[in-house]
């Protein structure tokens, strides 16, 4: 095992970033992704239904929930970035992933305060709606970099010997796991 890639697998703080093999960042990012995707659905739906007030107001709430969730995810994600040795491809990928996500969060913050000025009785105007579309597009790009960090470079993923223990018969799994730990 290359010790450099092994470094990116261990948390700098198990309490804050999640224990080895169970990082918290991937579950925290579901909050902004879910809230912002639902927010865009509300935006589009506000142009379809007869009385869109609840959708226009609800979309602003969803964006706010997403921002708070994104900040929480960012703080934990930053700890995982620090687990990666600097000067590596994985670290640079992490920096781009972080930069894009911070940009998206800032764009949603602008969108949130923009929406406070709009008339809640009508549908979401095209300007803030397009800002949300752009935000989600960049989020998708940035998310794919996050996927590359986890699934290609194995950041915060357990070593392969431990992974292999999941592919033994259930009765053998315990002993296989103990054996991989003992290595």
């Amino acid at each position, binding site marked *: 095992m290359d010790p450099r890639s092994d470094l990116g697998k261990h948390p*700098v703080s198990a*309490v*804050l970033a999640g224990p080895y093999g169970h990082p918290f960042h991937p579950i925290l990012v579901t909050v902004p992704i879910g809230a912002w995707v639902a927010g865009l659905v509300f935006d589009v739906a506000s142009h379809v239904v007869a009385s869109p007030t609840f959708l226009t107001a609800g979309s602003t709430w969803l964006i706010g929930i997403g921002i708070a969730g994104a*900040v929480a995810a960012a*703080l934990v994600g*930053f*700890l995982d970035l*620090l687990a990666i040795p600097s000067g590596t491809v994985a670290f640079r990928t992490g920096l781009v992933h972080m930069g894009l996500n911070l940009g998206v969060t800032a764009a949603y913050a602008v969108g949130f305060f923009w929406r406070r000025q709009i008339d809640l009785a009508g549908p979401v105007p095209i300007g803030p709606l397009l800002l949300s579309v752009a935000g989600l597009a960049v989020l998708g790009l940035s998310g794919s970099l996050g996927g590359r960090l986890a699934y290609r470079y194995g950041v915060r993923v357990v070593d392969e010997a431990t992974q292999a223990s999941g592919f033994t018969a259930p009765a053998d799994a315990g002993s296989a796991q103990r054996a991989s730990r003992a290595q």
Partner: protein
Amino acid sequence: MAVAALVAWVVTALGGFVMLARWISHGGLRQQHVGPTRFPAGLVFGHFGLAAAGLVLWIAYLLADIDQLAWAAFVVLLPVALLGFAMFARWTGARRRGAVGVAAGGTGAAAGAEPAEQALPVPVVVAHGVFAVTTVVLVLLAALSA
């Protein structure tokens, strides 16, 4: 006032990120059990985690405009400040001892076993402290006027 507090908070956090990155890259975590660092990981990450939770509360207060959130953020900041003072005291103590070591003819071998917190840039430490105090004051004023 509330937005000024957010700006001060984020600037403080940026300084904290820089210091955390340097502390870890200079072996702060590896030095936990046998090394010379005087920063226990629990102290460092307790400070980080509570400050992060407070920042999320403050952003939630800015978005939702619920006064109780402002006070909750202020209450969370108090232990953050205490832990920060604890680290600052340990950092200044280590620096004084480091200076004494150099004056007494510290060798290269001694320099290799330096506590990770010796790598923290002095201007960043000072700016972090100044902005942190500013943040606490602004958060209190914003909460009082909420």
